């Protein structure tokens, strides 16, 4: 699922950049890396090691990934348009909180039996 997200965001970023009159944003171009690095890669490693984190961890972790990714895409849109919005800070803060909660959950329940 996260791999599909990464491919989708990569495609979306490329199309958006194509029509942006040579105005570029790293936030748009590399947004796909978030679901790839935080999702596809660790989940693949977990699958290889046959480690199955519990559902709550997955919900929190996936929410963090989508929050960071949407925040990155939106920052890219604003960069390309040439504007700013102070509310953008909400995305990384929410993403970080979800990441910390997910990691705490992982630490508290490292078992593989919850699924």
């Amino acid at each position: 699922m996260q791999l599909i997200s990464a491919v989708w965001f990569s495609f979306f970023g490329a199309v958006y950049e194509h029509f942006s009159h040579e105005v570029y944003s790293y936030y748009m171009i590399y947004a796909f890396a978030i679901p790839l690095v935080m999702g596809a890669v660790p989940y693949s490693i977990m699958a290889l090691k046959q480690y199955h984190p519990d559902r709550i961890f997955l919900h929190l972790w996936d929410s963090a990934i989508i929050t960071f990714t949407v925040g990155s895409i939106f920052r890219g849109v604003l960069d390309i348009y040439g504007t700013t919005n102070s509310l953008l800070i909400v995305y990384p803060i929410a993403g970080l909180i979800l990441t910390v909660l997910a990691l705490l959950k992982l630490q508290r329940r490292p078992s593989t039996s919850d699924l």
Partner: protein
Amino acid sequence: MKKHSLFPIYYGIVLTAFTVYISLDTFVLRDAYQTDTVQMNTSMFENISVSAETTEYITESETEPTSESQKHSKKHHRDENADTTETAEEETELNLSDVSYQDENIQITLTEYYENNTKIYVADIQLKSAEYLKTAFAEDTYGKNITAKTSSIASAHNAILAINGDYYGTQEKGYVIRNGVVYRNTKSANDVLCIYADGTLKVINPDEYTAEELVSQGVWQAFSFGPGLVENSQITVTQNQEVGKAMASNPRTAIGMIEKNHYIFVVSDGRTNESEGLSLYQLAQFMLKLGVTTAYNLDGGGSSTMYFSGQVINNPTTTGSIKERGVSDIVYIG
């Protein structure tokens, strides 16, 4: 369904709602911070006497560009037989054609160039006082997402010549000083262009002075876009430098000073088959050739518009077509 399995759905709704809100807040929702912005703080002009030298210069100056290097540029005037606006004729009763304007306080000459595969429009402006270099907000309102076309704002203020400004409305920070009044005093990282009441033009670092200090020093207009292109007759941008995330070639708007009360407005086309657009370095080189000692880049891209004598002179591009788009503010002569 387990209780916690609903979390992704709820969170997805919250994330979507927030993203819709921030999108509307950025691009759509209007927020008027201050209406009726036609006030002008002209007190700074009280101690400035108009020098006889400047007046004489305006009277005697030829309509041809002054820089020697311009003679080597490919240039052509617009059709001088084109109609002029009746209103302007009645009001000025002086030399008003499609390429130049002159009265006792203002002299403007418009010239068109073709360089770097780009059409460039240059207005050479000589004023008796910087008081005639004015600015205006869309709908005479200082705020967010309040826009109007450059030509509409210019027409509403009876401008002789106008260009788009720094589109302050897209930024949350950066000094906004217009007609001697401070509208925003939060600094950004951008260079600030100051136009002083004594007719000089200077690019400053906003860390040096507050907006209020600038006004007390006689700053009549201040813009926060940039970067500065030329300072002390030296190019101050690198060959690869660009505005924010913009890459090489784009439509551009810039303002420069040749000497006190003698300015250059430059607008270039771009993003069309006919005109590639300019890089910042090319723009700086071009302005230096015009003889400026100081030059500054204003908002470009789809915003780049030059209005003169009742009509839009350049070819503004918006979403791929030749169309003027709304901006927050303009700089005008009138």
